[in-house]
């Protein structure tokens, strides 16, 4: 029986305290006045009649004591717009009042007049550069990956296959909206409690906002009701806002967004466009190719460069490219900045790669299975960034096993026969996707992070894990305690984890990038070993100790010598090399590998798609907690299914029009197939007990697998997600028109 979730009891009894469950004495409620236009100069702000303005605390850009920029990568995004706005929903003013219900009326009484400026809303408009809205060329970041000699392959190619693939924005849709509470005093500094993933990101941002030293900023994570990347960078903004209101009022201030504000104003998955041009040999081998990958970053740089990086590195999929050129860029549009969402660029570029593989297969006249068999990466070969794959991964075997588990071949044949009956309105199809996901920060990222983890032996003889890694559903607390317990040969119940409070725990890096179990877990292992070794070396503990002996030894150590903490800092493993300039080298310390198979029914009366069965097979190094690991996969698959079939952000002039759960549709229990999860375990020397990261992996595969299955069902190759019934209807209609015209023309002749 796997160990129980550390905070599970509090969650099932309703005792867990999320930010909106916390009230502080004298607390005010804050809200944000936002821009209603996509781009323009602020001309005039009028505070209208009928509101007792003297009861309100009002903060504008001029109140900011430090830098009016959200510290992240580039310092281009203001906390509060001062003279210009660059996207709808951009924060301009902050209001606070002791009565939450007084805020709406006050916001409505404020009129902001603008001199509008021309705005851009699509990747294409941004590329055209008719209007420069960011920097000198509307481009946040570019990458170029080059391997071999692509220019020489075209002459040798038997087939040249081209395609363009698009993915839409996707809302993280954590069920708990963004929210924080702040308190402020000029002596002690600022404290923020919030629903967030990365306490030290917020810490860094607040230091810059107030020009405070480290010790005058404290950030504490409250219980967090889902995040998925959506609470990676955005909490720095809402935390800054609440803190500014606290500073001005001298009181604690709570800001909790409602659903519509959260959906319209906060980050989403980057929309993307990928173009492939591939040289293929007569027998279906990839000779080389060019990939052009573009993401829409929204109005400010935020995390776009890093999202782009991961998308770029994953763009070649799990295939061997002897020659490749990947050109990638993140461009600016006048929409709220897009940000982190599980997968972080990889679901976008992998969708394109997998759809393109199916197109190559069709062009060459091979099955989707055979084309992949002939092009899979093998041990000893190099990736697009020339990283040699050392682990003994056998993707052909992984594919075969997934297909066998899904009964793929028999079903494919059966559905083919059923489709011979043209009048049948439900059409069935089966498809799959093969993919990989790199764990941990990209390239030199982990080296720059230089994460620190502590394990503490406490006065009562128990052990405590000290990390800033946060729990928001994945099981961080559980698995890190499990790793410490196993390392120390103690029962799981003997290990606690400290609150994610920057006043108490070291910076173990952000809780993102599928890095917690693999990278932070490995450091926990190492720090825990330090505790054990110290106790043994001090003569207080013998090898082969019991739980009670450990407790006594630990308590005695603290009583005699005081604080007992063991630290571990990330050291780059030998042989890991990354060139940030050329984008070449060991992009990730480890990759997880997967093949997902989807079976669908397309109803040609309603044009809706139902996924009937789903097989998710992945190699993840080592499964540390079977229940949590499976939960990560089923949850990721559900989000991927939403990405593929339901979740469409409707944009108008850079603003989300359907920011409600009523009209932005995510899957319910009734929409999902059985999700059958299988693991393979090859181990991983870079992860705790051989684990690799798995958090993001399951987001990558569902969309291409489902769209491939729809192609199998209908014979129409769709290249865009989300794929809604109306899209399928239109495409079916267009095909019918073409066929009829063809028939009519034949008749004339």
């Amino acid at each position: 029986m796997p160990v129980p979730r550390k905070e599970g009891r509090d969650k099932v009894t309703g005792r867990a305290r999320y930010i909106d469950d916390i009230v502080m004495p004298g607390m005010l409620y804050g809200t944000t006045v936002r821009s209603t236009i996509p781009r323009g100069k602020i001309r005039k702000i009028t505070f209208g009649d009928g509101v007792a303005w003297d009861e309100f605390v009002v903060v504008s850009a001029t109140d900011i004591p430090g830098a009016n920029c959200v510290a992240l990568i580039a310092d281009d995004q203001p906390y509060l717009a001062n003279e210009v706005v660059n996207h709808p929903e951009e924060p301009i003013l902050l209001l606070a009042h002791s009565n939450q219900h007084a805020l709406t009326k006050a916001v409505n009484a404020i009129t902001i007049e603008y001199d509008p400026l021309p705005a851009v809303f699509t990747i294409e408009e941004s590329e055209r550069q008719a209007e420069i809205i960011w920097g000198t060329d509307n481009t946040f970041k570019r990458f170029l990956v080059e391997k071999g000699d692509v220019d020489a392959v075209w002459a040798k190619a038997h087939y040249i296959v081209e395609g363009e693939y698009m993915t839409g924005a996707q809302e993280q849709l954590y069920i708990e909206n963004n929210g924080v509470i702040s308190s402020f005093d000029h002596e002690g500094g600022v404290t923020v409690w919030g629903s967030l993933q990365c306490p030290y990101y917020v810490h860094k941002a607040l230091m810059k906002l107030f020009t405070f030293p480290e010790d005058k900023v404290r950030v504490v994570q409250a219980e967090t009701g889902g995040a998925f990347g959506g609470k990676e960078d955005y909490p720095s903004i809402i935390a800054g806002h609440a803190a500014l209101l606290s500073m001005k009022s001298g009181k604690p201030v709570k800001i909790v967004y409602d659903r519509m504000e959260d959906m319209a104003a906060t980050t989403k998955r980057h929309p993307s466009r990928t173009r492939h041009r591939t040289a293929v040999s007569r027998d279906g081998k990839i000779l080389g190719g060019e990939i052009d990958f573009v993401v829409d970053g929204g109005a400010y740089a935020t995390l776009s460069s890093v999202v782009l990086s991961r998308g770029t590195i994953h763009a070649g999929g799990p295939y061997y490219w002897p020659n490749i050129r990947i050109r990638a860029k993140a461009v600016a549009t006048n929409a709220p900045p897009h940000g982190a969402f599980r997968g972080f660029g990889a679901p976008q570029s992998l969708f394109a790669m997998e759809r393109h593989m199916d197109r190559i297969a069709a062009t060459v006249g091979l099955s989707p299975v055979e084309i992949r068999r002939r092009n899979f990466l093998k041990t000893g070969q190099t990736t697009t960034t020339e990283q040699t794959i050392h682990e003994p991964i056998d993707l052909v075997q992984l594919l075969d096993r997934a297909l066998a588990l899904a009964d793929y071949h028999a079903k494919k044949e059966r559905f083919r026969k059923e489709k011979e009956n043209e009048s049948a309105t439900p059409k069935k199809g089966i498809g799959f996707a093969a993919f990989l996901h790199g764990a941990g920060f990209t390239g030199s990222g982990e080296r720059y992070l230089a994460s620190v983890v502590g394990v503490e032996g406490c006065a009562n003889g128990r052990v405590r894990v000290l990390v800033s890694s946060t729990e928001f559903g994945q099981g961080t607390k559980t698995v890190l305690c499990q790793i410490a317990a196993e390392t120390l040969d103690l029962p799981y119940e003997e290990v606690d984890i400290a609150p994610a409070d920057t006043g108490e725990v070291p910076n173990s890096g952000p809780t993102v990038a599928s890095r917690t179990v693999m990278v932070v877990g490995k450091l926990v292992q190492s720090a825990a070993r330090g505790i054990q070794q110290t106790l043994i070396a001090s003569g207080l503990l013998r090898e082969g100790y019991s739980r009670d002996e450990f407790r006594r030894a630990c308590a005695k150590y603290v009583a005699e010598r005081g604080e007992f903490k063991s630290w571990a800092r990330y050291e780059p493993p030998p042989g890991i090399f990354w060139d940030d300039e050329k984008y070449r080298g060991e992009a990730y310390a480890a990759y997880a590998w997967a093949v997902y198979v989807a079976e669908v029914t397309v109803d040609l009366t309603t044009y809706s798609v139902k996924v009937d069965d789903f097989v998710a097979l992945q190699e993840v190094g080592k499964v540390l907690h079977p229940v949590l690991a499976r939960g990560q996969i089923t949850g990721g698959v559900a989000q991927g299914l939403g990405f593929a079939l339901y979740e469409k952000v409707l944009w108008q002039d850079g603003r989300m029009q359907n920011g409600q759960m009523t009209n932005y549709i995510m899957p319910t229990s009734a929409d999902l197939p059985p999700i059958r999860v299988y693991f393979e375990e090859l181990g991983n020397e870079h992860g705790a007990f051989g684990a690799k990261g798995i958090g993001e992996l399951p987001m990558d595969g569902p969309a291409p697998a489902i769209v491939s299955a729809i192609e199998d069902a209908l014979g129409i190759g769709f290249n865009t997600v989300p794929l809604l019934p109306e899209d399928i209807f239109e495409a079916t209609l267009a095909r019918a028109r073409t066929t009829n015209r063809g028939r009519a023309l034949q008749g004339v002749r």
Partner: protein
Amino acid sequence: MNTPPAQCEVSFTVNGTKQVVRAYPMERLLDVLRHRLGLTGTKEGCGEGECGSCSVLMDGMLVNSCLVPLLQAQGARIVTVEGLAKGSQLHALQQALLECGGAQCGICTPGFLMAALHLLNEKPQPTVEDIKEGLAGNLCRCTGYAQICEAVAQAAVGVDIRENDR
């Protein structure tokens, strides 16, 4: 200035305890539970009856407490997540949710527990389809629902759920 609407006195029971609340008649039951009675286990996810995080039982019916004006709760028997466990003894559904991994971030968990309780009250021996259908009014972004459904199935075996609908 308009005169504010008058407050009224509304009485009902929550988890077996009688409550008398003086509040505005159109206040949301959700806010009354959370802010006036301190029962913060009931969560707000969307405020428009889509996500089910604010689900409670009202006279045995499953309702979204964000859509129920307080006035409507006059005389009602309300059960919230806080009413499930008996002291430190978890309800079978809570225990099953823990064991099966049905609670991840936990924000939707109280709502799912109420929906599951309602389902088992109506259908003590639900099929898998009954469970999927019975929970379809509640949104969970973490789990993909599989482990929640399994927990409900596990709890359904040989448990007298009804006694909890006080």
